[in-house]
Each structure stands twice: as C-alpha cells, then as structure tokens.
C-alpha cells in the first residue's frame, strides 16, 4: 500500500529527507511514517518559535500602550527574554496537590496542546505549502480547536480547586456560546466558495485586494467582524477573558499548574491566537495571495501577524466584560446577526450580485 504525501511540496528539505530514507532501504510505509513524524516536529518547531515571538511582542505592545518599556535586559529590547522564561519553566519544580484527580490533571495540558497543534495539519502556509489538503479542511479546524474546551474543563475539574473549577466552567459556557457565531460567519464564506478545503478557499480569492472575501462579497465585512469577535472569545483573550480573569479567579483553570505543564497551557494559548488569525487570513484576507515581490508564505505571515496585532490591541485597550454581558451579547446579538448575515449571503449568492 502506498501512502502518498499528497499536496506537500516543502522543497527541497523535505524531498532530501525522503530521498535519504529511501536510500537507506526502508519500505514505503516506514518512509511515509518517518516523514510525517519529522514534519510534525518541524511544525512544532515553527509554532514554538512563533509563540516565543508572540509572547515577546505582546509584552512589548502592552508595555508601550501603558507607557512602560517592557522586557529590556536580554538582548536588543529583550528579544530573547521569552526564551529565558521557557528555560526557567523547564527547571521549575512540578508542584502538584495531593487531592487532585491524577489522570485528568495530567492529560489536560497534553490535550490542550494537541487541540491547538492539530489545526496545523490543514493550515495553508503558502502556495503548495500545506501538510494535507483535507477536503473538509475548515470543518476539521473548527472541530479540532474546540477540543480546547474539554481540556480546560478537565484542568478545572482535575485540580480540585475552586478557582480552577470556576474558570473551567466559565470557559466552557463562553466558548460554547461563541462557537456558533464563529462557525456561522465561516459558513457565510463557504456559501460563496462551495468547498470546505482550505486550498480551494484561498484559490477562490486569487488576485489582489478586491478579490479577497472581505471586499468581494457584500456583507463580507460584517462576517469578518463577527468572526473576529467570536475568535477573540474562542482564544480566551481580554475583552472576553473571564475564564482566567486574574483579578477575581487568580489565574482561572491553570492555578494549580506549574513548570512544564503550565508552559503547555501557555504555549497552546498563543498557538490558538495564531490559529484564529490564520483562519481569518485564509477565509477573509486572501490567504497567500498578494503582490509578486514577496513569496506566498511571506504574505500569509504578514497578514496573519496583522490580525494578531489587531487582537493584541483589543486586549490592551478594552476592559473585560461581565459574565452576564458576555453571554447576552452572544445569544441576543451575535447569533441573530450572524444567521441573518448567512441568509442574506445565500440570497445574494442566488441572485448573483457579487463579482
């Protein structure tokens, strides 16, 4: 049986690795397995670097908004501060409480990381730069990133701590409520594409700015805004960060975690931030499309980091919502709005009023 790595052309490094494995005389099954595992490791490396950069970037932005400097000691403007933090977390004692639920407590950070990591199977980093172009791409991302909720509830429950339990429960209620507007905003775009594959979605908006779905489709801007709001809530970031509201819940679901287990939650949070921005880029901002002088993956990164910057500005300029405001905003405003937008999108698609 042949297991093809279908759409991946991570040339030339990847073909070199594959050639090396074939030269070693391994069978096709082994070559494919090892290549995929190596690919997973490469993606992990890229994501870890991105997360280190994003943490540093966020701290600098927060500092400058609050008229501070932020990290300054390690290197130019503290550029390797977060690397040092990661090394420190690696050496920290793993303080665990006696009365925890051992199995649930241990697997929660692993599941949290996996839920964030698995979305990158279908992430189109650039032209022909995708691990596997699954034909249910966007549905797969929506499904797999929601596993984060389960891990947060697991963390809250397994800790046997009241703050953690409250944080976990709140995050479940919040993420569950904002899941619906997020998916329906995505569906508004899917109606115009007619395919769930990430590559098809990007190819449907090839060309320059006015071919991107945010401008191409009437009501595209509304779908983009509702998506961004729901995505902020999904990633548990500040206007919507009641699951870990520092001032009332200490740190929410991850109070009892320390050392590497805490680091996994932290890493997953920033990977999630990048994921929702990358999905926004793919769906609304044309993915890898752009002018010729920058390679496709460069455009993808620039646009995604732009969306990340937007979310960071939200975080440091808006105050936190109360629980009741948060839930009522989702159910009484966002859900009716997104569904109305979807119906209008359907009517416009039927009448053909788009270019």
């Amino acid at each position, binding site marked *: 049986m042949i297991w093809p790595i279908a759409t991946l052309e991570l040339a030339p490094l990847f073909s070199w690795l594959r050639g090396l494995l074939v030269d070693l005389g391994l069978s096709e099954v082994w070559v494919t397995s090892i290549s995929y595992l190596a690919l*997973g490791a490469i993606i992990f490396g890229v994501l870890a670097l991105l997360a280190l950069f994003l943490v540093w970037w966020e701290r600098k932005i927060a500092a400058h908004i609050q008229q501070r400097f932020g990290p300054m000691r390690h290197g130019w403007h503290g550029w390797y501060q977060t690397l040092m933090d990661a090394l420190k977390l690696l050496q920290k004692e793993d*303080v665990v409480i006696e009365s925890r639920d051992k199995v649930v407590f241990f697997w929660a950070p692993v599941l949290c990381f996996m839920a964030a990591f698995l979305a990158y199977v279908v992430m189109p980093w650039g032209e022909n730069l995708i691990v596997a172009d699954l034909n249910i791409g966007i549905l797969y991302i929506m499904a797999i990133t929601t596993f984060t909720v389960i891990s947060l509830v697991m963390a809250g429950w397994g800790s046997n701590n009241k703050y953690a339990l409250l944080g976990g429960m709140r995050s479940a209620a919040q993420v569950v409520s904002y899941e619906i507007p997020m998916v329906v905003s995505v*569906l508004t775009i*899917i109606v115009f594409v*007619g395919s769930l594959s990430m590559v098809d979605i990007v190819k449907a908006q090839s060309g320059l700015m006015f071919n991107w779905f945010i401008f191409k489709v009437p009501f595209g801007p509304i779908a983009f805004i509702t998506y961004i709001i729901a995505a902020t809530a999904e990633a548990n970031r500040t206007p919507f960060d009641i699951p870990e509201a520092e001032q009332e819940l200490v740190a929410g679901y991850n109070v009892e975690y320390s*050392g590497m287990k805490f680091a996994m939650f932290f890493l997953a949070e920033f990977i999630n931030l990048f994921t929702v921005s990358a999905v926004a880029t793919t769906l609304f901002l044309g993915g890898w499309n752009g002018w010729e002088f920058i390679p496709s993956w460069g455009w993808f990164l620039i646009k995604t980091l732009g969306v990340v910057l937007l979310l960071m500005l939200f975080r440091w300029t808006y105050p936190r919502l109360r629980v009741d405001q948060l839930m009522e905003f989702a159910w009484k405003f966002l859900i009716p709005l997104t569904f109305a937008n979807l119906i209008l999108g*359907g009517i416009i698609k039927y009448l053909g009023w788009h270019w």
Partner: protein
Amino acid sequence: MEGAVGMTEYLSVAFFIIAGTGIVLFTFFLARLIRPHNPYKEKSMPYECAEDPVGDSWIKFNNRFYIFALMFVIFDVEVVFLFPWAVAFGELGLFALVEMVIFILILFFGLFYAWKKGVLKWV
C-alpha cells in the same frame, strides 16, 4: 476511486497526533530530569490565597451552565446541517434557500421562546 485516495490523507492527522503527544510527553520527561523535587504538606494543598480550603471543590454547580449547554447542542446540530447545505448551495438553487430559511426560522422561534422565558438571562 477519488474517495479512497482522499482517505489516505487523513493518515497525516494520525501521525500528527502521535508526533504531538510524543513531543509533549518528551518535554515533560526532560523537565523531570532537571527539576527539583521537594513536596511537603503545605505545598500540596489547593491554592486559595493562603486560606485553608474548606471541603472538596467537587460540588454541585450552578445549573445555568447546563441550560446554556443544552441551547448550544441544539444550535450546534443546526450548524452541522448547515455545512453540507453551504457546500452544495451553488447547485441546489432556490429550493434549498427557502428550505434553509424555514429551518433557521423554526430554530429562531425556539430561541425567542427561550429568550421570553428568561433562560438567556445570566443571574
């Protein structure tokens, strides 16, 4: 056999699950090698801002959360039906559009009923 070829791509998900779990467990193992280990009774108590915790935290919980979870299940099932509709919409035309508007309206009737009953109010 396009379907069969398509299925093999899903192996990448399986391999990513293996790779991801392996990497996380490896970092846990690496930390175990170099970190100190010195637990004592006070350290292994739940953290409640220096108060001694009273009782377990595994208690009965506000059932608001349960009601919202129920509402979510209804809407999530609706969204699952909307996905194939959105993909095939280009070929189906007016009939599918009207059908789906009726479907969404019925669900929204339920939402407004819950709204009027005060279910959506977070006390």
